[in-house]
């Protein structure tokens, strides 16, 4: 086989393996562990997707995005609205359907969520053209809030009452597949020529611009890709539970930031680690829940002072330095 064909076949094999892994883990989980743990694993997987996507913007491209929850919200609500309003019309698949027939509609819903969120990411990324650092941070925070307020005012998705009645279609298989996809895509981006451009912007934006890297285009792209995956995570979340804008506040954005910072900005593996630890640990430490946020905040401060590169540091992209 020609090299092209064989790498395509290899790719296909990997995809099949990933699907098998996702389904396999899910079946095992449903059999052997109780729904409470199952839920934690699902939430963990979603947080992994959020942390990885945020890492692209904050860790790899060095931008300041602190409104990530807004993207998750957009993806969640867009996909939920699609499933509840459009899917029964277009595919005749009602809320009580189950089995193979829901795979297509769910995939579409995820895409709808991801793409809508990507569009939001584009809008949020645009100001990055003229803004640096702290200002960009506040603007992303502002967008997160504006998105939340706008959703709160849309009655069709429940507004202040929340969006109930979304059919529960997500399970661990979907979440694992989603997390794997996010990981693979981001890892490939990072290793590519484009990845080096992102890193260059992080290291020294002006030098990169001077050397011909179209920095604005890359910065906006980072936002778009990150928003897409956050949107898919949101869509998966929407098809798992009841939606209310209170799940997408600034605090959620902060939690994702802590995950990325703890794991190490710029390190994809670090984000996986950070997300896992910070999803599992609060459950294990339920008795200390009122101190949890105090611990988080101290963790942030101490990390920044003592070890700003987090646990796994800037291991990716700093080779040869």
């Amino acid at each position: 086989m020609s090299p092209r064909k064989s790498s395509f076949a290899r790719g296909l094999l990997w995809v099949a393996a990933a699907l098998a892994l996702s389904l396999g883990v899910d079946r095992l989980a449903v059999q052997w562990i109780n729904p409470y743990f199952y839920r934690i694993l699902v939430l963990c997987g979603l947080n992994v997707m959020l942390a990885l996507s945020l890492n692209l913007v904050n860790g790899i491209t060095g931008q300041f995005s602190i409104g990530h929850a807004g993207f998750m919200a957009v993806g969640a609500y867009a996909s939920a609205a699609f499933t509840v309003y459009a899917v029964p019309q277009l595919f005749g698949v009602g809320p009580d359907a189950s089995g193979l027939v829901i795979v297509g509609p769910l995939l579409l819903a995820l895409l709808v969520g991801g793409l809508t969120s990507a569009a939001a990411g584009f809008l949020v990324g645009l100001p990055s053209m003229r803004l640096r650092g702290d200002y960009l941070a506040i603007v992303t925070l502002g967008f997160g809030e504006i998105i939340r307020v706008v959703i709160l005012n849309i009655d069709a998705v429940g507004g202040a009452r929340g969006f109930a009645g979304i059919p529960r279609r997500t399970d661990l298989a979907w979440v694992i597949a989603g997390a794997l996809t996010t990981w693979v895509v981001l890892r490939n981006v990072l290793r590519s020529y484009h990845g080096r451009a992102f890193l260059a912007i992080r290291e020294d934006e002006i030098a990169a611009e001077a050397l011909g890297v179209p920095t604005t285009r890359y910065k906006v792209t980072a936002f778009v890709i990150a928003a897409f995956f956050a949107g898919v995570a949101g869509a998966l979340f929407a098809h798992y539970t009841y939606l209310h804008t209170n799940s997408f506040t600034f605090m959620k954005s902060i939690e994702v930031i802590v995950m990325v910072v703890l794991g190490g900005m710029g390190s994809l593996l670090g984000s996986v680690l950070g997300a896992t630890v910070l999803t599992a640990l609060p459950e294990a430490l339920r008795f200390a829940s009122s101190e949890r946020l105090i611990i988080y905040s101290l963790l942030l401060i101490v990390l920044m002072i003592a070890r700003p590169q987090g646990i796994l540091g800037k291991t990716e992209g700093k080779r040869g330095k």
Partner: protein
Amino acid sequence: MIRSLRPLSLAALLVAAIALMAGCAKQSNEIVIGEYGSLTGTTATFGISSKNGIELYLDNLNAAGGIGGTKVKVIVEDDQSKPEEAATAVNKLVDQDGVIAVLGEVASSRSMAAAPICQQSGVPMISPSSTNPKVTEIGDYIFRVCFIDPFQGQMIAKFAKEKLGLTKAAVFRDIKNDYSVGLASYFTDAYHALGGTIVADAAYSEGDQDFKAQLTVIKSKKPQVLIVPGYYTEVGLIARQAREMGLDVPMVGGDGWVSDKLIEIGQDALNGCYHVNHYWEEDPNPAIQKFVTEYKSRYNAKPDGLAALAYDAAGVLTSALDRLRTEDPAAFKALLGPRNDAQKAARAKLRDRIASTKDYPGVTGRITLDAARNAVKPAVFVGIKNGKYEFVAAVEP
């Protein structure tokens, strides 16, 4: 390769540790129920009030011997005032701790997040104070011991139009609070049906400090009465600021006004205002006074409507358990055992007993659950005069 093994093994260790901490369902000689509430977060006072109410009731019950000799244990989980945490908390209670019934929550948004889990697992859930009608619509295992907003809205409209004789109202709702939004619309519909006119409809957000901008607009429309279906924290401030601006018409509100802090905040501005209450804390009924006194001495604060409702929710649940014990001792025994089909059937029978609750003597009134599993109770209207509450009317449904 070794690099990537480290974090993976760390994660695996963590999961294993959690798994170890999980016990399997045990055989015990106690009834184990679960409670979830917002003990931390933005609405922490709701969760704490409810927790106190439940705790007080169960401690009294256990001191008197429990349910026919069997004590009741409650496992409390915090949902941090967040809906998805409510779902996780209830998941833990139902699947991890194996509770046979759940009490919670105050906020309808959190009840809505958790109820599907209880419904699916066949674990009865009683909400003390969620008033959004949709909560009990989720399934037949979901109950509440308070009235629902359509009823409350109608009562307020009747009160304003017929008892106070005022035909032009302004509505000031809390747009971030589904309770307030719902109550405001039910009021509006009922008021229109009675022939009243709404001259102004404004909104604020939970947590706002300053309402003068909206009050200015409301004042210019010259209403005769201002309806504020929100929570006490904002209501007190709204009253003060309204008076500061020269808007002196009476204000009427729902059960969200209920708190011993209301008058502390609003002070003289609230004179001549009215609101709905679940119970009247100065009601000379000895059972109510006993509750108020015990609560005060134990928690150093006057019990608010939420604590009273939680107290009654615990009571309704345990009285249903008691009836199950006398009518079907085998089923009652199964509730003490492990999570198996016998217990599931027993829980279904418990559900039936709860559904047939009739005239339960609670501190918030005689509670009867109707076919939609909502409580049929009178709405008490109280007025404020000279900084003190006075009973005005009790409206039967």
